[in-house]
C-alpha cells in the first residue's frame, strides 16, 4: 500500500470493459494510474475463447431481440441523446475521460479536452443523418423493403455482430466504428488496445443511460493484440471484422477471418499538406503557418490524418526556407503551450536518428537544413530546397519541401501511392479543383483546409471507400414475385 506524507492514497476503481447484462466475468487483471493523491485502478477481464463465444451469442440474441427492430432514425436519435450528455462539461463520464485520457495516452490534457469536445459533436443527430444520407439514398432501406427504380423491392441487412479491433493512437476514435456498426443494426464486440481502452467504455455507459437495451448490443474489452485463440474465436463467431492499425496487427487477424465473412481494414496512411504562394502573402503567411502546425501538433502526428510533410510553393512573399523557420518557431511556441507527449526510447531514438541523418547530410549538401528543439526531441523541421517526399518518424517531426509549382507535387508521391490519405491544402479557388483532381489520381482520398486535417467529417469516404455500404448486403424482391403473390390473394377478383 502506498503512503505519502499526506496520508493514504485513495483508490478509485474504474472498469475499462463493458458487457451486456447477463454476462458474468470472474477473472480480472488490474492496472493502476496515479493522479495526485488518487489511484485509479483500471479493471479489465481476462477472458477465454469460450467467453468470447458466449459474449457473441448474447450480442447476437440482443441484436435480434432489440436492435434489429429499431429504425435507423430511432438508432440515430438514441445515439444523439447519448452524445448530448457529453456536451455538458459536468457530465461525469466526460470528466473522467478528461482526467484519465491524458494520463493513459500521454497526450497534452488541453489537446485531449479540446479534441474530444470537437470529436463528440461529429455524432449529433444532424451530422449522423448527413453521414447516412451520403451513402444511402434511402436510409429506410435498412428498416423495410423499399421500391427501387429497377422495379424490385429491396432491403439492406448489416452484420448481426461485428468484431472491431481498435488501435489506441487517437482517444475516442473507436466510437466512429461502433456507431457505424450500430447504425447498420449490428451488435459490436470491440477489442480495445491498452494504450486507450477507456473512451468506448464510457460512451457505452452513456448509451446505457439512454437505452440499456441498446447498450446491451455492445461488448467492449481489451486484450493483448495477437492473442490468437481469442481473436480466432472472435473472428469466427462474428459476421464481420474491422481492423484498425498496423500491418502486423492486420496480417495476423486477416488469416483468421473466414473467407465468407466481411473484412475491413484501416491501416497505415501518410498525410501531408501543400501551401500555395497565394497563402504566403504578407496578410496571410503567419496564419497559414499557425494552421499548418495545428495539423502537426495535435496528437503529435499519431493520427494518420496528421501532416508528415509540407510542400511550400516558391514565389510567395516569404520563401519556403523562411516558412520552414517560421514553422520551427511555431512548433517551439506550441511546445510551450501544449507540450508533446513523452516518448518511448524507440520513438525518441527514431527522431534522433532522423536528425543525425539530415544533419550529416547537411554537411555536404547546402540544400538540406535541420531546425530542431535544443536539448531534446520536442520538435524537428527538416528543410529540403529540392522537392521530394518522405514520411516522418512522427511526434512533431516534419519535412518541408520547397517546390516551384504545387502542380508538380504528384510526381513525387508515386512510390507512396498505397499509403496516401489526406492533404491539407491552402490555394486560391481557381487552383483548388484541378489540384484536387491531380491528387485524387495520385491516391489521396481527402482534402481539407490547413489546420483541419486531423478532424475528418462524417460522410468522409474513410480511406477512399464507403463506411456503411461495405458492411451491408441486400435482398431484392423481384416484381414478378409480387405479381405472383397477388394471384394467391384469396380476395383477388
Amino acid at each position, binding site marked *: 500500500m502506498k503512503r505519502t506524507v499526506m496520508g493514504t492514497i485513495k483508490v478509485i476503481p474504474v472498469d475499462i470493459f463493458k458487457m451486456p447484462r447477463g454476462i458474468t466475468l470472474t477473472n480480472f487483471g488490474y492496472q493502476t494510474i496515479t493522479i495526485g493523491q488518487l489511484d485509479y485502478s483500471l479493471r479489465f477481464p481476462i477472458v477465454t475463447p469460450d467467453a468470447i463465444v458466449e459474449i457473441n451469442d448474447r450480442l447476437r440474441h440482443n441484436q435480434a431481440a432489440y436492435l434489429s427492430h429499431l429504425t435507423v432514425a430511432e438508432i440515430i436519435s438514441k445515439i444523439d441523446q447519448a452524445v448530448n450528455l457529453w456536451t455538458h462539461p459536468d457530465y461525469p463520464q466526460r470528466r473522467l475521460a478528461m482526467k484519465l485520457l491524458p494520463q493513459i495516452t500521454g497526450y497534452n490534457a488541453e489537446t485531449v479536452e479540446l479534441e474530444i469536445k470537437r470529436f463528440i459533436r461529429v455524432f449529433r443527430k444532424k451530422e449522423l443523418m448527413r453521414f447516412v444520407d451520403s451513402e444511402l439514398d434511402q436510409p429506410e432501406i435498412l428498416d423495410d423493403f423499399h421500391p427501387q427504380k429497377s422495379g424490385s423491392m429491396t432491403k439492406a441487412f448489416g452484420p448481426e455482430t461485428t468484431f472491431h479491433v481498435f*488501435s*489506441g*493512437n*487517437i482517444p475516442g*476514435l473507436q466510437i466512429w466504428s461502433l456507431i457505424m456498426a450500430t447504425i447498420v443494426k449490428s451488435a459490436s464486440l470491440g477489442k480495445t488496445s491498452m*494504450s486507450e481502452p477507456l473512451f468506448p467504455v464510457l460512451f457505452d455507459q452513456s448509451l446505457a443511460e439512454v437505452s440499456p437495451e441498446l447498450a446491451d448490443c455492445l461488448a467492449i474489452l481489451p486484450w493483448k493484440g495477437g492473442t490468437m485463440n481469442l481473436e480466432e474465436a472472435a473472428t469466427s463467431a462474428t459476421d464481420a471484422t474491422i481492423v*484498425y*492499425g*498496423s*500491418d502486423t496487427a492486420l496480417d495476423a487477424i486477416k488469416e483468421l477471418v473466414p473467407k465468407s465473412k466481411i473484412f475491413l481494414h*484501416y*491501416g*497505415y*496512411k*501518410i498525410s501531408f499538406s501543400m501551401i500555395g504562394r497565394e497563402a504566403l502573402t504578407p496578410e496571410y503567411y503567419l496564419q497559414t503557418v499557425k494552421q499548418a502546425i495545428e495539423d502537426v501538433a495535435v496528437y503529435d*502526428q*499519431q*493520427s*494518420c490524418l*496528421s501532416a*508528415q510533410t509540407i510542400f511550400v510553393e516558391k514565389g510567395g512573399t516569404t520563401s519556403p526556407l523562411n516558412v520552414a523557420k517560421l514553422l520551427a518557431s511555431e512548433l517551439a511556441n506550441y511546445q510551450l503551450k501544449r507540450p508533446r507527449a*513523452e*516518448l*518511448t*526510447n*524507440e*520513438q*525518441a*531514438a*527514431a527522431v*534522433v*536518428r*532522423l536528425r*543525425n*541523418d539530415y*544533419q*550529416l*547530410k*547537411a*554537411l*555536404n549538401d547546402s540544400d538540406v537544413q535541420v531546425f530542431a528543439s535544443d*536539448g*531534446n*526531441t520536442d520538435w524537428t523541421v527538416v528543410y529540403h530546397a529540392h522537392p521530394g517526399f518522405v*514520411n*516522418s*518518424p*512522427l*511526434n512533431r517531426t516534419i519535412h518541408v519541401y520547397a517546390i516551384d509549382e504545387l502542380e508538380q507535387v504528384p510526381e513525387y508521391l508515386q*512510390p507512396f501511392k498505397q*499509403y496516401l490519405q489526406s492533404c491539407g491544402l491552402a490555394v486560391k479557388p481557381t487552383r483548388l479543383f484541378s489540384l484536387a483532381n491531380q491528387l485524387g489520381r495520385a491516391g489521396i482520398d481527402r482534402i481539407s483546409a490547413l489546420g483541419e486535417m486531423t478532424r475528418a467529417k462524417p460522410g468522409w469516404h474513410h480511406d477512399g471507400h464507403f463506411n456503411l455500404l461495405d458492411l451491408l448486403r441486400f435482398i431484392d424482391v423481384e416484381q414478378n414475385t409480387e405479381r405472383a403473390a397477388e394471384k394467391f390473394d384469396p380476395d383477388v377478383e
Partner: protein
Amino acid sequence: MTKTSTEIQNDIYQFIQTYATTDDQQLSESDFNRVALDLFDYQFKSNLPYKRYAQSQRKSPLIVNNWQSIPLMPIQGYKQLTLSTTPVQKDEPVFMSSGTTDPNHRSHNYHPSFKVWDASMKYPFKQFVLPDRDKMTILGLFPGEKTNSNSSLSRYVTKAIDFFGDDKSGIFIDENGMDYQGIVGALKDAERQGRPVMLLGASFSYVHLLDYLNEQKLTFKLPVDSRLFDTGGFKGQSRSVDAQDLFDAIKNTFNIDRDHYINMYGMTEISSQCYDQNLVRLYHHLPLDYTKAAPAWVRVRILSTDTLQPVESGHAGLIAYYDLANWNSCVAILTEDMGIQDENGFEVSGRVQGAEAKGCSIAVDQLLHANQM
C-alpha cells in the same frame, strides 16, 4: 600543438601498453582525458567531415575541455561520410559493415595501420577471454581475414587464433559454408584428449551449428575450461533465439556452462571491444557478474534518447562509445544500440528499432520494410 598521425598513434599505443591489464577506469582517468582531448584535437584538424560535424554542434578543441564533451559522431556518419584523418590510399585496408539494414550504404572504417588496433584487440582478449591460460584450441566459426578482408570481425577471428590459438586451432567456415564435419572432428578430438576448446563465432553461426548437431543427434562432453564466445546478436537473422534456450542448448550440446559463455561487443565503426566479465571474475574467484567491461582506453556512456544527456545508473539509453583506438576516424561515436549501465558494467539490450506506430500512422522503418516486401 596538434600531434601528427605518428605521434598520436604512439601516444595511444603507449596508453594501451600502460593500462593493458586494467579495466579500472579511475586509475586511467586523467591519462584517458588527456589523450582523448589530444586525439579530438588531431581529428578535428585532420578529419574534415568530423570537424564540420563538430562545428555544426558548436564544438571545437578550444571549448571542449573534457572527454565527455567531445562531440559524438552519429554512427550513420560512417555510411554517409568519408571519415579518415589520413588521405585514403588505394588498397588501404578498410572495414565495411555487412550493410544488412541498407545495402546501398555500408559503414567504412579506414585503417592505414593496424598497430593500435592489434594492441587494442590483444590485451582485453587475453584478460577477459583467456584469463586462465596463454593459448588454447580455438575453433573459428566466422570467416577469416583471407575470406573477407573487409570485415573487422574476420580480422578479429584471425588475430585471435594467431595470438592465442594452439596448433589444433583453425577456422571452420569460408565462402563455401561451414565445415561441419571438420568441427565435429575437432570437437571429438578435444573430448577424447581432454583438451579444452574455445568455440569462437558470430551469434548466428551457432544457430546453424546447433541445428546441424541437433539433426545429427550429436552431443559432446567438452573438457572442463572449454568456453563459447559469440558476438553480434540474433536480430534480423533467420530466426530469433531466446537467451535461455540458447544457454540450455549450449549446455546440452557442448557441456559448456553459462559461466563459460562470453559475449563480445564490437562493431565495424570502432576499434576496441568490450566483453562480459563473468569469465575473468570466475577465474579470479570473484562473485559472478555478467555485465560488460570496457578496456581502459574505452569509455561507455548511456544517453537519454530524448536529451542525449547521460541517464541515471540503471536506466536504459543509447550507447555512446569513446574509443582511443579509433584514432583514424572519430574518438566518440553515438551508436544505435540501447544499453544499461551501473557501477559494475554495462549491458547491451539491442539495436534500437524504429518506433512502432501506435495506430494507423506509419513510421519510417515500417514503411521501408513494407516497400521491401
